């Protein structure tokens, strides 16, 4: 392969072996294969709840990749926020929208071949560009950990205080907005012509029943 010859040619110059990877690279590669497989299963499985569970595997694998890249704090934040809260929110969303348990034949839309073509074309282009651009670049992972909690906290509260505070305001606004969006308006439901008039605790409008019957 073209890349292999380039790597062999660069091996003497850079002092790194492209074809004899280090232990960290092997672990990264194996965890990456697991992560990518879980991601592919997330977007292709026909069981909706299984998609959320495969997403847990993919996000956990990414946390391990962050650990291998010496970003410890990001890894734990990933586990806490993504695996701990976002996937739980997604599972609650699947439950509240009455997602079918088991295989649902209409999980994919009709434009699936076009989506596959777009994704494969984008993947080919991106992988080609990235390997061509960074084939002679190595990350130096030796020395003290670059992303320990102490270092990240010092950088965050020394250089990034203003974006951090702005982000907290954004998060508050988003959560208040989510609460406002999901509460039921009793006055509007009574006054409206038919929209939302029968939005009972089960969350089914009467029109739905008449469309499905």
């Amino acid at each position, binding site marked *: 392969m073209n890349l292999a010859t380039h790597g062999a040619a660069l091996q003497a110059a850079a002092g*790194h072996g492209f074809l004899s990877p*280090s232990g960290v*690279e092997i672990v990264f590669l194996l965890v*990456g294969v697991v992560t*990518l497989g879980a*991601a*592919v299963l*997330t*977007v292709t499985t026909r069981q909706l709840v299984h998609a959320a569970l495969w997403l847990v595997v993919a996000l956990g694998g*990414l946390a391990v990749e*962050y650990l291998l890249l010496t*970003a410890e704090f*990001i890894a734990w*934040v*990933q586990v806490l*926020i*993504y695996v701990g*809260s*976002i996937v739980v929110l*997604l599972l609650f*969303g699947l439950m509240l929208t009455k997602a079918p348990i088991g295989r649902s034949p209409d*999980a994919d*839309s*009709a*434009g699936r071949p*076009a*989506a*596959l073509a777009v*994704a494969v074309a*984008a*993947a080919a282009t991106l992988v080609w560009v*990235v*390997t061509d651009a*960074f*084939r002679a*670049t*190595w*990350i*130096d992972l030796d020395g003290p950990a*670059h*992303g320990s909690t102490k270092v990240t906290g010092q950088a*965050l509260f020394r*250089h*990034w205080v203003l*974006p951090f505070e702005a*982000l907290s305001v954004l*998060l508050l606004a*988003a959560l208040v*907005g*989510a609460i406002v*969006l*999901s509460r039921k308006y009793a006055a509007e439901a009574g006054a409206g012509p038919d*929209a939302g008039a029968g*939005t009972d605790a089960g*969350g*089914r*409008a009467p*029109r739905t029943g008449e*469309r*499905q019957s």
Partner: protein
Amino acid sequence: MHLVYPAVLSALLFCTGVYGVLARRNAILVLMSVELMLNAVNLNLVAFDAWLRDSLHAGQALTLFVIAIAAAEIGIGLAIVLMVHRARGTSDIDRLRDTSEPAMDRFPDGTGLSGTDPSGAAPARPDDPAGPAATNAEAGA
């Protein structure tokens, strides 16, 4: 570590997310694919931060910001999906054809509600020959 490993992995994860956003029908599955794309970007940020050894730790700080924004996005997105499901009884994006109120689909411009319904509960109107074809084309776009 060779920089190509994390860069290629994040590119492939991003394209997996692109496929999911384009091919999935359930809105919550689309949100999951968006999370995959955001995670691919995070992996890129962390890898390049470890490569460049930035003294400001810009990559890792931005990764934390992206994670927080993803949490906010998933909260708002799920609230919107739940509201749509409560109002219309479905969270399939193929069937959400119009931005009007639910009463508007009695008019001829609201034909898309029955476009790709696999159960055949609401058949397409006979006076709209481009109905399912247009729906397929728009779903693939």
